[in-house]
């Protein structure tokens, strides 16, 4: 692995973001809108239901966590799609850069993109709604880490699809998170789902992450088991995504997708 090459690819996206005010605005705009909206919904439910009586910020905290996941995944896909849209894909793949270096660079850049959007939104929650996500304590770090890994995993899976099937796979890039959201039990406990859906939910790391966030905020207790299961499933899916990415890269080399990739 070459740090120079990883930095080089990071620079490409750093220049792109910093050269365009609309791009920076876009990164901050949606998380802020999303969190403001869920902040008001959270306040409403906190005063009109008994379930949230002890923790007014539960819905908003889960909304912030979900938004982080969403931004990470979409951010990763965007970085990959940028190369296709700008017709720079071939230039990138004829450069002496290893797949591991490409992925590492995109993983770092996706995190920075997500934080650019999320940090201002998080800072807004305290003065606007009197809620701080820091109430989750040290476990906030583990929950964010889990979500980050899962977001990156989804990004790698979609990018593998783009490599294998070309730009026509782009629509899937936008819809992955929406497909998984109902099973993630972001805003409701897993018991809300029908039994068959619960079985699907239990093989996703999301349910453990959001159940744990609610557990900490509502019951003021910590279940290490949830954090542990989230990491186990994450490790499994992350490994699968890496294998699939390499498989897709080789398949693209056989099929010729790399040479024809473009809008």
């Amino acid at each position, binding site marked *: 692995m070459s740090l120079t*090459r990883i930095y080089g*690819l990071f620079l*490409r996206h750093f*220049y792109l973001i910093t050269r365009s005010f609309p791009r920076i605005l876009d990164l901050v705009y949606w998380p802020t809108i999303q969190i403001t909206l869920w902040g008001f919904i959270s306040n409403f439910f906190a005063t009109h239901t008994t379930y949230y009586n002890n923790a007014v910020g539960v819905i908003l905290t889960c909304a912030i966590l979900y938004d982080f996941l969403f931004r990470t995944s979409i951010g990763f896909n965007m970085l990959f799609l940028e190369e296709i849209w700008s017709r720079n894909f071939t*230039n990138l793949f*004829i450069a*002496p850069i290893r797949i591991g270096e490409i992925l590492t660079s995109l993983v770092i850049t996706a995190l920075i993109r997500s934080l650019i959007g999320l940090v201002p939104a998080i800072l807004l929650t305290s003065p606007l709604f009197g809620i701080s996500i820091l109430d989750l304590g040290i476990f906030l770090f583990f929950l964010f880490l889990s979500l980050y890994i899962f977001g990156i995993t989804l990004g790698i899976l979609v990018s593998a699809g783009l490599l294998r099937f070309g730009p026509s796979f782009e629509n899937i890039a936008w819809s992955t998170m929406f497909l998984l959201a109902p099973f993630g039990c972001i805003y409701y406990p897993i018991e809300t789902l029908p039994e068959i859906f619960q079985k699907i939910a239990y093989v996703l790391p999301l349910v453990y992450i959001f159940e744990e966030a609610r557990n900490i905020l509502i019951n003021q207790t910590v279940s290490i088991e949830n954090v542990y299961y989230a990491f186990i499933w994450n490790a499994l899916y992350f490994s699968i995504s890496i294998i699939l990415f390499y498989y897709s890269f080789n398949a693209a080399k056989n099929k*010729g997708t*790399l*040479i024809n990739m473009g809008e």
Partner: protein
Amino acid sequence: MNNLIEVKHIKKNYGKKEAVKGISFSVEENEILGLLGPNGSGKTTTIGMLLGLLKPTSGKIFINNLKLEENRIEILEMINFISPYIELPKKLTVRQNLCVYAKLYKVKDIKDRIEYLSEKLRIGELLDSVTGELSSGQKNRVSLAKALINEPRVLLLDEPTASLDPEVGDFVRTFLEEYKKEKKISILLASHNMNEVTRLCKSVLMMKDGEIIDQGKPEDLITKHGRANLEEVFLKLSRGKSEFN
């Protein structure tokens, strides 16, 4: 003379379709080899295989005596490519694009290299311009600068002067001639501009339907086929012998 490119019996099949049918050729150091053929003859597929973007169904490719399959990164460090069908990121300035690729190719003195190429390719005043706002002639020179950022020993050119006005086209051709002479690099040139090929190439390969149907020095091919120029030879070979004979 050392062969910088050595292609041995490469085939590429897409399912049942044979895009390249076991072709072999080599390009010496300090040589420009022309790759000619009608659309769909297998030129782009051949270049794709040389760049490691396509895996040959069978056969071997050696660049500077290294087998491509086993030395992908080492080989990509010493080759580069230019084509009108690929572009540099449009929103970045020329300098930023060159910096990014200099990092990807691990160029040591980035500033010096960019200055050298800017002077040679006359893009000094464009360095802080946004790449997407350049004219096609300017973009072409910038793409050439990117293709030379790593001081490649092997340069693959796909239609390098397509869509350029005669003056810029001539500038690029003169530059390539001088650069090749100065650096002793090997160039594989795929082009539909027969005057360009006649001027630049020591020898040419004529491809059709995935096969090499003829090869030799441009002047020898013209004599052999009894035509006035390389374009007529190309037309004869690509349309089939019956039309001209």
